[in-house]
């Protein structure tokens, strides 16, 4: 591929490495335990966690994007109610 004029490279998510391939374990959210505090969201190095409201729930719950999650386990460690568990 050739470099654009002026050497500018534009962000294009389709060219990004799928860092989810790195994971040797994956975080599983227990939606019943999750209190929707968003602590994990701000510490996730890969910004993989979004708060999503499911039909039955009153509060938004953590939802993980496995395309980019590297499986580091930070979310499970910071969760105050231990609603996230790392599974192989």
């Amino acid at each position: 591929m050739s470099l654009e004029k002026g050497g500018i490279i534009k962000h294009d998510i389709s060219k990004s490495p799928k860092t989810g391939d790195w994971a040797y374990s994956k975080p599983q959210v227990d939606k019943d335990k999750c209190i929707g505090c968003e602590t994990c969201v701000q510490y996730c190095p890969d910004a993989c966690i979004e708060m999503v409201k499911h039909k039955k729930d009153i509060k938004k719950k953590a939802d993980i994007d496995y395309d980019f999650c590297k499986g580091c386990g930070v979310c499970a460690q910071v969760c105050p109610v231990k609603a996230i568990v790392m599974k192989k």
Partner: protein
Amino acid sequence: MNKELTKKLSSGHATCQGCGIPAIVRTVLGATDEPVIVANATGCLEVTTTIYPYTAWKVPYVHSVFGNAAATAAGIDAAQKALMKSGKIKKKAKVVVFGGDGGTYDIGLQALSGALERGHDFLYVCYDNEGYMNTGGQRSGGTPYGANTETAPAGETSFGKSQQRKDLMEIVNAHHIKYLAQSNVAYVNDLKMKAKKALKTTGPSFLLVLQPCTQLWKFPTSEYVAVGKLATETNFWPLYEIEDGKYTINNIVKTPKPIEEFLKVQGRFKHLFTDKNKQVIVDIQNKVDENLSKLVKRAEKS
């Protein structure tokens, strides 16, 4: 992918599993709604977010060489001033620099000093992982006393780095800038508050943020927040800010934990927990106490 958090720095970057740098970048850039231009020194953040042909940056981003990130920011600031004067732009974008401790304490220090002294309008954020972690963990001016590094290895005759780390906050403070603060990635709310203040400052501002490195501080990938919290709870890394020369300590730890609590969770200090290196831990504890009492005195005086 979290849409809100990835507005400026996307996912798909290649920082190590469990690295705290992206959280620093997202928190600092998330503290403003105004347009930003990012300049970056060579280091972990630069090599992992800009792997050709992909860039994780959604904001204008400039990387020049290792030592001149602050000079690059000065240039961007000067260019914006000129464009304002000629009427080509109506409003200036915020200029934010990210540099590691290698690019700030050591290699980029003179460029930083020059830009601070000239009074350019920019925010310099130093993410301090206490060594040249991107190249395998060589010692830097920010590496603490007693740490085992690639170029100050612990062994039979050495206990690791035998010098104290530089007091970068005081070096920057000596430039009499309006706002500088020491923060920690484990305390994101503190960091957010400080980033907001720094970005509101006209003229130069500076943030020194501790960033525990899972690879070369040697702890499990899930622990960066826990290790960061221990650094502050032991008073190894107090959180404070200096506004117009006035010191404020943000977290007064009433009963600090002994420094061993912070050291024992890291592989780089493993060698200190032997009979022959007992004294080194005492020295580290004494230095922590001394630094804190100096800081408290400065806070009381101002």
